């Protein structure tokens, strides 16, 4: 959650751009590769499909919530003192802009989530200017509480992996395996979860769990991603049912080396692209350069965060930005090999001035379960 003390800086940013107000909107969805502006700004994740925080130039902030019954929860969890429930969001939001005397330019965050009618209603009242960068700039500086949540979530990912390893066995169905991982991470404090996993002798990609039963010799790949207070941390791991054949060990060793090399490039001030180039160099030198780029590969990493996912949703060889202190970044040399199929290997770290700080304790290696 944004430190309410930062509201002054929000007002300053509005002044600089001559904005009469700010509108931070959410339709209640969370996308792992996009900032959740409203969640960060207000400190709460709404239940409903229409929630907006509106801030006037003189610093008055109002949270408008639909359905109205969710207002009670939001009131006790946000620093915003004026929380209003509504069942007529489309009419009440423009009225609120009028009440707060917001005419002229209004800085909007979350406009990409707005439907046609809502966008029209707001733009008839004020000129919409994109303003996501205001919150993203603030979110770049993490508070002690945010850092604590980031580290706690890393521990939940460890719990998730333990459940993955314990339950990945012949006979269990993919969706049953997911249920066990989910339960372990929820019990450990996760309030949202993103998991993709696949099994088979030659995986093409990761996907939602199917009815498939795990079989001896299967390669099981997973992206285990718990979230707490909007902060996601991801572990990408591969578990084999039975001792892996030498070719699999050999290919996985390439990924481990790629990850190791990319970690040496993670430090505040370094170009984010170095992380990707380091991985691609190792994998390319091993003879798989073709498989390092689309259509086989999209990104070598990305950021995670609530108010900002800087350095961005895609880290590849062409990412034009530098890493900054306290960004949360996953480096994942997840890779398709023609000999083994798709393998998962990846680690989320906190960027520091001295290098990457690992957020989970789970050893990065190829795992296998005895059958």
């Amino acid at each position: 959650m944004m430190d309410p003390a930062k509201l002054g800086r929000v007002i300053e940013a509005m002044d600089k751009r001559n904005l009469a107000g700010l509108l931070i909107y959410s339709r209640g969805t969370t996308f792992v590769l996009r900032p959740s502006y409203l969640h960060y700004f207000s400190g709460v994740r709404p239940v409903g499909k229409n929630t907006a925080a509106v801030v006037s130039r003189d610093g008055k902030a109002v949270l408008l919530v639909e359905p109205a019954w969710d207002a009670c929860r939001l009131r006790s969890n946000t620093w915003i003192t004026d929380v209003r429930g509504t069942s007529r969001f489309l009419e009440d939001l423009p009225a609120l802009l009028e009440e707060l005397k917001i005419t002229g330019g209004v800085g909007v965050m979350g406009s990409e989530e707005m439907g046609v009618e809502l966008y029209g209603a707001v733009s008839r009242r004020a000129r919409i200017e994109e303003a996501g960068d205001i919150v993203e700039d603030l979110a770049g500086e993490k508070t002690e509480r945010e850092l604590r949540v980031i580290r706690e979530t890393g521990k939940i990912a460890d719990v998730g992996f333990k459940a993955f390893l314990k339950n990945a066995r012949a006979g269990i169905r993919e969706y049953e395996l997911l249920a066990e991982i989910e339960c372990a991470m929820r019990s450990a404090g996760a309030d949202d979860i993103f998991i993709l996993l696949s099994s088979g002798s030659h995986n093409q990609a990761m996907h939602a769990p199917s009815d498939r039963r795990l079989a001896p010799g299967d390669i099981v790949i997973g992206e285990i991603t718990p979230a707490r207070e909007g902060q996601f941390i991801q572990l990408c791991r591969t578990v084999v049912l039975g001792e892996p054949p030498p070719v699999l060990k050999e290919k996985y060793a390439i990924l481990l080396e790629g990850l190791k090399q990319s970690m040496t490039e993670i430090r505040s001030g370094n170009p984010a692209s170095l992380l990707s180039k380091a991985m691609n160099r190792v994998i390319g030198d091993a003879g798989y350069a073709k498989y390092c780029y689309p259509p086989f590969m999209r990104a070598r990493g990305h950021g995670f965060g609530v108010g900002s996912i800087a350095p961005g949703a895609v880290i590849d060889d062409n990412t034009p930005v530098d890493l900054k202190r306290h960004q949360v970044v996953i480096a994942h040399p997840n890779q398709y090999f023609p000999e083994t199929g798709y393998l998962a290997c990846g680690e989320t770290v906190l960027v520091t001035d001295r290098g990457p700080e690992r957020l989970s304790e789970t050893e990065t290696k190829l795992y296998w379960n005895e059958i």
Partner: protein
Amino acid sequence: MQTIQPTLKRGRDVWDPIGMPESEFRTRVDRIVKEMRKRRITVLLLFGIGQDDYGCPCYVTNYLTKMPQGAMAVITDKGEVALICEGFARDAALIKDTTWVKEIRSSETLSRTCVQYLKEKRLLSSTIGFAGVRQHMPCREFEILSEATRGCRIVEADPIVNRMRMIKSQREIDQVRRAARLVARLFDSLARASFPAFNERAVEALIYRLGYLDGAEDVRILIARSAGARPRGQRPGEKDEPLRPPDDRMISGGDGVVVHLAVEFERYWAEGTRTYRAEGISLAESTPDAVRSLYGRITKGLVPGKTASGFYREALAKTKRSKMPFVAEYGLGGGIGLSSEEPPLLSAHDDTLLKEGMTMSLRLCVTTPETGLTMLGDTVCLSGNGPEILTAVFPQVICRSYR
């Protein structure tokens, strides 16, 4: 009922072509095409997005959006169907496993891909029907579509699809029934479970585990706390707390806990609500008889032939006569199927005629002196034999004679 949307639908994602065969979808498409021709619509665009509003395109394709991404089903008046999904190009191969539609395009710019498709099919100067587009499509996507279809006649075609979706086919009722059985089993398990660490997270974790183990595609839970369950004066100032997502709070003996569950099974939703009292490290159902009796009388009235608003007024009158204050914020419910909130709405303003084949989410929230905030809710099928509660642990069984 609105519930917090997860980042990803993580549960079992399969298409069972026996339970929901291609012929079922083709029948739907044929009916839609018939309506299109009546209205001289050349091409119909059915848009859906995210974890809650996927119904329109899913109705004809079975495709499910599992993240906050869009999908568009395109139906021509010749009955051709295409599916355009927002996502990465590589996803197209995976999508094939869960839909009967052969023409699939996956791209990061849904509207542009849709426009490209319409161009290829020479449909950009025709009459285009929109369903789910104005309600759900993000404005920027809409602007692209709007600009490209400037020369076309646009027909708002939501009523075509909404009317069809309101009355479920037998196969759809069976899917809702399966989802409802999961809800019933979860409530039953909740009442049998012991929680050594008795907090809301533990309750939530159990529900997710059991729901996903039984093959749910998505599971949602809301919790409310009622103050009235403990002897008056034990915790002065304690108030009822409305429904919300579970958090880290502990549950202790005597606490009143309302649990609302929604489960999606192979695209179809069912939901229910129960009121419990914490006893030691367990939850015991604690709905007072007077509330059960009132709820029973209200449920009996949910029959084909009356309007949704008429049912609402009757239910409110029954509640008033019972002298239990009605908590209006949560409403009485409405249609349920591919969405947990779909027409008709059981409200004073919806005059839709209730018909056989509708599946409804019904709920009642009142306050009582014994338990404070008390909620009961079920998924109900409107059948020729009256309302059938699908979320009962032992659903009403109608034995037919086959002699």
